């Protein structure tokens, strides 16, 4: 009897698309019960959105003031309590899920499988190691609860389905006060979110400076795309770390990925290899990015990118 508990991710107002992807992964386990845990405050609207996902059999809503901010130390004991009777607990492999899931696993006294990219059986999973240099197939102990995070780039989200019942739960669990939320600073402009965008334009060290990197933003705007960056560009201080794509940043799977001035180290490529179309613009014809690019252009980016922006604008105006 497979019973899966999916940990919902949300921003306090809306359910994050990551949750629909986790539900998709959970369906591969062929569960008898597929329950989404919504810990939020206020939580009604989010619970309703979770209940509308295809395949969900029930939503457990814990609407309590301490759940207003996503603090792992506060959420984990509640999730651990909710996990009783479940064979699997799934969370997205986002910074939210990566933060909370191992804490839940340890409280349950079990290990965790990080970044599941395929389910081969109720207790058999595939995941990447060494920056995607290998796919390892792992068997989990069937006698224990399996806690896992889901590699979001490997799953499409489920669509809407018949509304599942929402059950409100009040938990008798002591919550710590040793961890306190202070603030969230979001520099998101009008551009799409990097994790979920269908088009992404990313820049590397070759942009040369934060000012040079503005060219990436201009191309992104011409394409209606999100902006990403290589670790080298982040390390050089051109852009914020939350734009980093790759092994230690975000793993994404857009329809179109345009890599500009990015050499294509394996640590970067592992973050984009599920993109449908990869375009590379680089002046070094030997750059490894060309080995994975569907369309490659060897050119000076400072000439090619403005030209491309003009061409796209002309096309759009046609």
């Amino acid at each position, binding site marked *: 009897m497979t019973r899966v508990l999916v940990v919902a991710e949300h921003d306090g107002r809306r359910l994050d698309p990551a949750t629909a992807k986790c539900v998709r992964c959970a369906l591969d386990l062929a569960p008898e019960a597929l329950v989404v845990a919504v810990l939020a405050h206020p939580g009604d609207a989010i619970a309703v959105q979770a209940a509308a996902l295809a395949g969900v059999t029930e939503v457990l809503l814990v609407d309590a003031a301490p759940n207003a901010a996503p603090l792992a130390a506060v959420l984990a004991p509640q999730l651990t309590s909710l996990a009783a009777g479940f064979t699997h607990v799934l969370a997205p492999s*986002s910074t939210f899920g990566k933060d909370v899931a191992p804490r839940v696993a340890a409280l349950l006294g079990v290990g965790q499988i990080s970044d599941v990219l395929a389910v081969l059986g109720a207790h058999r999973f595939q995941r990447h190691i060494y920056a995607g240099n290998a796919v390892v197939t792992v068997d989990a102990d069937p006698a224990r609860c399996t806690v896992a995070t889901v590699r979001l780039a490997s799953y499409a989200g489920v669509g809407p389905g018949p509304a599942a019942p929402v059950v409100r739960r009040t938990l008798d669990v002591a919550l710590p006060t040793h961890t306190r939320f202070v603030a969230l600073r979001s520099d998101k402009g009008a551009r799409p979110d990097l*994790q979920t965008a269908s088009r992404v334009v990313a820049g590397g060290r070759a942009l040369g400076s934060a000012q040079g990197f503005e060219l990436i933003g201009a191309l992104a705007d011409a394409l209606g795309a999100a902006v990403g960056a290589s670790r080298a560009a982040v390390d050089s201080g051109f852009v914020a770390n939350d734009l980093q794509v790759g092994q230690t940043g975000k793993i994404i799977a857009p329809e179109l990925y345009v890599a500009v001035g990015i050499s294509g180290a394996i640590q970067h490529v592992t973050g984009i290899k599920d993109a449908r179309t990869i375009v590379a613009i680089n002046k070094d014809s030997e750059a490894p990015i060309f080995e994975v690019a569907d369309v490659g252009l060897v050119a000076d980016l400072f000439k090619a990118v403005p030209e491309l922006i003009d061409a796209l604008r002309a096309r759009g105006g046609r």
Partner: protein
Amino acid sequence: MQTILVAIKRVVDFNVRVRVKPDGMGMATEGLKTSINPFDEIALEAALRLREAGAFNSVVLVTIGGGETDRELRTGLAMGADRAIRVDAAPTVEPLVVARALHALAVREQAGLVLLGKQAIDDDNGQTGQMLAALWSRPQATFASQVSIAAGVATVVREVDAGLETIEVDLPAVITTDLRLNQPRYVKLPAILKAKAKPLAVVSLAELGVRDERQFTARDFAPPAQRSAGVRVKSVAELVAALETRGVLA
């Protein structure tokens, strides 16, 4: 609140490409250059700066593995850690076992803070810090890009998907480090020589009351699916045409 425990892992160097063994039963890591996991090196640097700022008295380095890890521990001592502890165990122990060992050491050393990388670049699990915090019943501040400490409270800026999140945690706490926290210092030759005299203790898992239990079995290892080679275009016009053909500009 005197001691910072810094957990480091020995990994194949960031610049070396690791391949699957021909028999698919593991990774071919023999003889490859190793180093301290880059995120753990950032954790060590953060600890050294906190000690230098007077927030803590000593920095204790810990790793889990066999004698092969001594090189990385000596490097950490040369960077400035005061002493090192090696928990003698197979290097393949699972993160929960590592967390249990670190928990035992955090209690024994009365650590005021445990610092470690947000993930190791070999297994890419990213679990140990959070598991340790859970077992220790202490706060966790993961993916830290800024840490300041005053009056027994750490204020940590975290790199999260939505941007930068600031949280406050009461000490003792566990902090896992992201790449923008700092730039680790270079080790100078005199420091390397001096580090040879610094204490390096070895303790077994059993002495810490921890069993090397395994919950997961790796069945096989395979190279990732390769993307097929694409086309090279000669101009921006050809690039736009290629994208139109692929239907991605619709």
